[in-house]
């Protein structure tokens, strides 16, 4: 290449490059399009089986459930609404009634509601979906029998074209919340059956990638790693949503999400967490953006494996609770977007008692308890956290420092999701930072999974107490509210006295968005539905 041709090529390349430079235009400028950034794909669209946030949010926006959690505006936070305990509203079912003192729930299917195929939504369709939930692999096969005593498809009954009934063995206060879960998405039975095969009678394979029901939005594009696009459903029973399109952009890097917000190239960042508390803090007061944060039910705790020494020693567990530097974690790691955990129950859950815990940061008291425990120090211990869980990684460093003051020699081990889960379930973690969010805001749903000795995969501390197991078993279907909540207090007292976890914090549900976005709703399961959102 001679110099002249080199210069020609360089000039050509520069011209081509500069031709591409033009003012940035984005979807966010189209008023009726909501552009959201997150970092999740749709793992599956089967309502019984999704695990990823992408799967859940898409299903929650594209399928109707029989009933839904009702949201109410929040005082002092215009433009936002929250679900309240024991408040529901009709969805695919326009109303409901209780029989046999609440042991049978009767749903009246909405008149005139049609699937995209044009076939009407009927009680038979509702029964088919519940039958499928109970018999195909997934959440409902676990939740129905163990929590509300629904074990056989015969307990689902079609009374007429628009009347469906679910017969439980006895009344259960959790039943309505379980019915509101997105796992009970109402699907078109003919559509599902058309894609069933002998080896896959419930068409789980087809439903992974297809939607067979009706909801406020329909999925028009799913390009993993790029974007998901939802479009408002025409002739739907709810009022037409303001946002005709919702584009969920896949942005894996958090710094990009911050820059996109600051540049107003997107309307909002969602996900769990979507933005770390530190970045949310940095966006507070940014012109054109607003931060919405409300207390929520996601628990973060230090699991202490009680099958292993020295964590089988009550004094050691109590000492650790006195060594947790919560007053430092709140401002330095969580930047105020969290609430101190004072009970194994979330602080928004009925029955929560916040004044039972004696624990506060007191190294003197912790040292004294360690002395009383008769455990030889220094104690080498591994503290496991998941890679990429920023607040856990940072909290681990604070915990390490404080625990070393009371005789531990802490090594922080970072593990990928797959490794973390495997090691946890095998019982090989000594100390680990765990998190949990109960979709159903009920004390016994929560304690059943986290504290019952039979909950092998979710009881991360391997806590085993026959007295508590009995209380949980009795309370799961207890209908007397006084006894139900009274038992919750007894259970919390036992668990706090036993220092079952190192009590850390409850996350706040936090979203950063453009100032003109309103109508944001948060329900118990924490996943957004966009049909109430609008631009002011």
């Amino acid at each position: 290449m001679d110099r002249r041709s080199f210069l020609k090529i360089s000039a050509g390349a520069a011209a081509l490059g500069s031709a591409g430079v033009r003012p940035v235009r984005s979807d966010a400028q189209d008023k009726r399009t909501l552009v959201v950034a997150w970092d999740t794909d749709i793992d599956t669209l089967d309502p019984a089986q999704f695990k990823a946030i992408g799967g859940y949010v898409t299903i929650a926006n594209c399928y109707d459930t029989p009933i839904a959690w009702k949201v109410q505006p929040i005082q002092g936070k215009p433009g936002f609404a929250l679900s309240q305990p024991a408040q529901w509203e009709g969805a695919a079912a326009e109303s409901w009634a209780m029989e046999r003192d609440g042991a049978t729930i009767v749903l009246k299917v909405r008149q005139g509601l049609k699937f995209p195929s044009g076939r009407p939504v009927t009680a038979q369709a509702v029964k088919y979906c519940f039958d499928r939930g109970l018999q195909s692999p997934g959440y409902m096969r676990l939740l129905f029998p163990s929590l509300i005593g629904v074990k056989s498809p015969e307990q689902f009954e079609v009374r007429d074209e628009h009347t469906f009934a679910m017969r439980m063995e006895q009344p259960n206060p959790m039943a309505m919340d379980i019915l509101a879960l997105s796992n009970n998405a109402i699907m078109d039975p003919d559509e599902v059956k058309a894609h069933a095969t002998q080896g896959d009678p419930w068409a789980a394979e087809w439903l992974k990638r297809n939607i067979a029901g009706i909801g406020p939005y329909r999925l028009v594009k799913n390009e993993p790693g790029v974007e998901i696009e939802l479009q408002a459903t025409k002739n739907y029973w709810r009022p037409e949503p303001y946002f005709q399109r919702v584009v969920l952009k896949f942005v894996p890097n958090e710094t990009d999400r911050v820059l996109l917000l600051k540049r107003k190239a997107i309307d909002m960042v969602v996900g769990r967490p979507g933005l770390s508390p530190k970045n949310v803090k940095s966006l507070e007061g940014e012109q054109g953006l607003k931060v919405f944060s409300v207390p929520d039910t996601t628990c973060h705790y230090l699991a202490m494996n009680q099958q292993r020494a020295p964590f089988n020693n009550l004094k050691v567990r109590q000492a650790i609770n006195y060594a947790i530097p919560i007053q430092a974690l709140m401002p330095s790691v969580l930047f105020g977007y969290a609430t101190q955990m004072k009970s194994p129950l979330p602080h928004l859950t009925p029955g929560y008692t916040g004044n039972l815990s004696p624990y506060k940061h007191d190294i003197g008291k912790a040292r004294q308890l360690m002395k009383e425990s008769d455990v030889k120090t220094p104690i080498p211990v591994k503290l496991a956290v998941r890679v990429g869980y920023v607040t856990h990684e940072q909290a681990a460093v604070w915990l390490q420092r404080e625990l070393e003051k009371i005789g531990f020699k802490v090594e922080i081990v970072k593990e990928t999701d797959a490794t973390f889960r495997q090691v946890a379930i095998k019982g090989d973690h000594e100390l680990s930072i765990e998190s949990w969010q109960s979709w159903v805001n009920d004390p016994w749903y929560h304690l059943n999974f986290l504290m019952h000795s039979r909950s092998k995969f979710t009881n991360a501390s391997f806590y085993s107490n026959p007295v508590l197991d009995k209380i949980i078993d009795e309370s799961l279907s207890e209908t007397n509210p006084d006894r139900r909540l009274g038992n919750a207090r007894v259970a919390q007292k036992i668990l706090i006295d036993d220092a079952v976890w190192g009590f850390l914090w409850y996350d706040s549900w936090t979203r950063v968005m453009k100032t003109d976005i309103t109508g944001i709703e948060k329900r118990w399961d924490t996943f957004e539905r966009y049909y109430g959102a609008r631009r002011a």
Partner: protein
Amino acid sequence: MGFGGYLLRRVLLVVPTLAGVTVISFALTYLLPGNPALVKAGALATPDVVRDIERQMGLDRPVHVQYWRYVSGLLRGDLGESSSTGRPVLVDFRQRVPATLELTLASLFVAVAIGVPLGVLSAVHRDSLLDHVSRLLGVGGVAMPSFWTGLLLLYVFFYLLGVAPPPLGRLAADVSPPTRLTGLYVIDAALTANGAALVSALHHLMLPALTLGFAVMAPLTRMVRATMLEILESDYVKAAWAAGLPRRRVVYGDALRNALIPVITVLGVIFGFLMAGNVVVEMVYAWPGLGHYAVTALVTKDPGPIQSFVLFVAVMYVFVNLAVDLLYGLADPRIRFR
């Protein structure tokens, strides 16, 4: 044996190499800690559900059966399924490989287009200001991690100046992808004369390609500079100067042509660096290639995507090395195919 025989022998040698690669990619996922069935089952799973999933995924079978299942699947074009996208890995690859290749090739272009002239100029103007600047750029490219360079470029050109597009993929939201021929948007748009898509694709490619190209430019510049210096001192160049040939012809005609021979080898190595560097740059620019896909698969220990990614990179390496060997033979008449 002529070129044809040599080519045939080299291509046949690829077969055992690829067989070895399948063993390694399988062994990697097998030996990595973590149980993918647990991740797939989710938080609320029970032990029977996990056992069911293990059975479905064949994880309960002996190692050799699992390996055979993997290889026979490969031969049928079945690479397994991704648990994060719920789609066959082959479908995901068809979508993502062109994005990664486009970025890799564009970065290679940037590295060559800037690196080679810079190397030549540094050699010709040895120890001048230009030479020092070029050295500084080279050291900077190697020393600065590309996620940092990427963020810096984004901050300046997207956030502050607003001339770069938002890091939201390969095309602007209002531009439809060009008709698919190769999957590389720039090429497809150029071939189908789709001006809007071409401009948008180049616009979106600009910063990622610059970031990645900058990171691999240094070895190229240094190599060109070193070889050029050596050649400029050689007898035939001196003879050319003495014969009074024009400077341009001596430097760019006689010297550079010979200096480019080792550059071909370096390009093969650089290509490897680019494949690895892609992972980071794709994350920074939300570039929908294989990078983030592979990282997610590693975190969740998703066997299909991990094995396929390792296999893909290995195959690319094998073929790039093969191409380098062949090009080398073509470029250097002293090399005989035996």
